[in-house]
């Protein structure tokens, strides 16, 4: 049995034990179903080097990719969420060299919230603090039972912590705020608060009213007042906002900031965003360190420029070549963006077949990080996790591929 780190989601579970025979995973312990699927996928639908639909060697594919990128006037480098920090650093260097636009999945995901957290405008804590001290966990627009299966059992509800020895039985409360009764809401049972799609703003206003001792303007006033009293009694609360909440609030994220500030006047309340991909936060931190912005950066004028015009949604329509790595924008992004992206010369670096590799001019296979390639990644709460590969492969890692492309340019 070997110790493995799972890169299936941003929890980066590192208590996984796996046994390997003939370069195949045959038995694995402690891995959730999602992680197990992620690992098993390593043995099917792997990519091979391709140029214009024809098989090629890896060197030819890298040379062709370099050619496309260096002849492009406005290249776009997109993805990065499923790459190690080392590969992301190489990507940022490549963007600088090309004068390219670089953006990651947080641009269409948790970026708007992550920016506030990294700037320190919204207080945050680590997941180990959650386990040790938190007595109230709020899952807002998130369903960790499905998206991060081990979230509740490792950190937010079931484990015993330093100050929470009686854990879920007596000392912890978990609350779900969601549009539907999700699997997590089922666990929260009585503390499930239903919001209509897009009405998180009204929900925040109702909570603020209750905290000020006013009557909330919602249908179920009694339940809202009950929530207010739970929040007031909390010693150490943590809010886990998911995509549901971020999409619903969008530009009104200031309201959420106000709510957290108000809660912190009463008691300690932290926010840990439910990041999806395993190293989205890593890219945000890395780019912020280098340029001051977490995503949507263009190096076309030399100095880094930031703005909505450099987001993947806008850049997909204006770029003349794109490199996609560690994400599949064609299946994840809105149709108009995906369609625009599919029309430009596309270079896809991906270990497995995806819509992006199907549409790409150049496909470069890479090693799966966590499984076949080592590196460092940042967990959803900002902790750095270093991992080693445990399957042997001849494939190049993302970092090596990007370095080779850079050398060729």
């Amino acid at each position: 049995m070997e110790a493995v780190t799972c890169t299936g989601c941003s929890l980066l579970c590192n208590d996984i034990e796996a046994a390997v025979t003939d370069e195949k995973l045959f038995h694995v312990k402690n891995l959730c179903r999602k992680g197990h699927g992620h690992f098993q996928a390593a043995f099917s639908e792997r990519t091979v080097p391709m140029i214009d639909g024809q098989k090629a060697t890896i060197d030819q594919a890298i040379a062709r990719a370099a050619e496309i990128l260096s002849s492009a006037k406005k290249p776009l480098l997109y993805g990065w969420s499923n790459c190690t920090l080392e590969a992301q650093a190489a990507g940022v260097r490549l963007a600088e060299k090309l004068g390219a636009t670089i953006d990651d999945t947080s641009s269409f995901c948790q970026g708007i919230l992550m920016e506030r957290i990294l700037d320190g405008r919204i207080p945050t804590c680590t997941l180990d603090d959650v386990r040790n001290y938190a007595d109230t966990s709020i899952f807002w627009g998130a369903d960790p039972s499905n998206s991060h299966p081990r979230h509740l059992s490792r950190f937010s509800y079931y484990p015993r912590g330093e100050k929470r020895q009686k854990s879920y039985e007596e000392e912890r409360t978990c609350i779900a705020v969601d549009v539907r009764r999700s699997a997590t809401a089922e666990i929260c049972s009585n503390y499930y608060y239903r919001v209509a799609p897009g009405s998180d703003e009204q929900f925040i206003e109702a909570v603020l009213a209750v905290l000020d001792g006013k009557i909330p303007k919602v249908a179920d006033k009694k339940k809202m007042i009950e929530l207010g009293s739970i929040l007031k009694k909390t010693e150490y609360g943590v809010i886990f906002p998911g995509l549901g909440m971020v999409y619903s609030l969008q530009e009104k994220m200031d309201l959420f900031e106000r709510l957290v500030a108000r809660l912190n006047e009463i008691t300690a309340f932290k926010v840990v965003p439910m990041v999806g991909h395993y190293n989205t936060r890593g890219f945000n931190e890395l780019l912020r360190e280098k340029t001051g912005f977490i995503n949507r950066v263009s190096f076309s004028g030399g100095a880094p420029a930031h703005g909505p015009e450099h987001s993947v949604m806008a850049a997909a329509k204006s770029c003349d070549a794109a490199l996609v790595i560690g994400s599949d924008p064609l299946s994840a992004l809105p149709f108009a963006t995906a369609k625009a992206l599919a029309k430009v010369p596309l270079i896809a670096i991906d270990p497995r077949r995806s819509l992006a590799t199907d549409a790409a001019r150049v496909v470069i296979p890479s090693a799966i990080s966590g499984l076949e390639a080592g590196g460092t990644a940042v967990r959803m709460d900002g902790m750095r996790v270093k991992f080693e590969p445990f399957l042997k492969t001849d494939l190049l890692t993302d970092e090596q591929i990007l370095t080779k492309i850079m050398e060729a340019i």
Partner: protein
Amino acid sequence: MVSAMEIYMLLPKTNCKKCGLPTCMAFAVGLLGREKKIDECTPLIEEKKYEAKLKKLREVMAPFENASETGLIIHPEKCYGCGNCVVACPVNVAADPTRCGIGLGPQSDRVILKVEDGVVVSNNLKECRRFGPNKILCNACTATCPSKAIEFV
């Protein structure tokens, strides 16, 4: 989940005492508690008129066949492998406090529930608080399951 009353309705209701119990109702409770077997009710097996009832009873009792000694049934196709039950189970925590207690996967062999290949599996059921004469109706594993993948018959 079938009730004792439903089982009783499928028995001969003659209180013949051939099974060793005073009434058919007592036999129904025995079946539910898995202390008695259907075959012990000889009139039901032998007499032709009870054929339909016997068929129905076997259908109703079918899920009990797959249950373990404590009545635990795991539906692997429903399990997310989240490990909530692994961390919540009091026996697991007592067996491996430094790992199960703080949310990590167990390393001890004495634990009841653990996650293997993405789904939960059970071992050492004799340690379960539902086992043996002093059993209590602990439901830590079923109450914490988000997908209802664990149940007790």
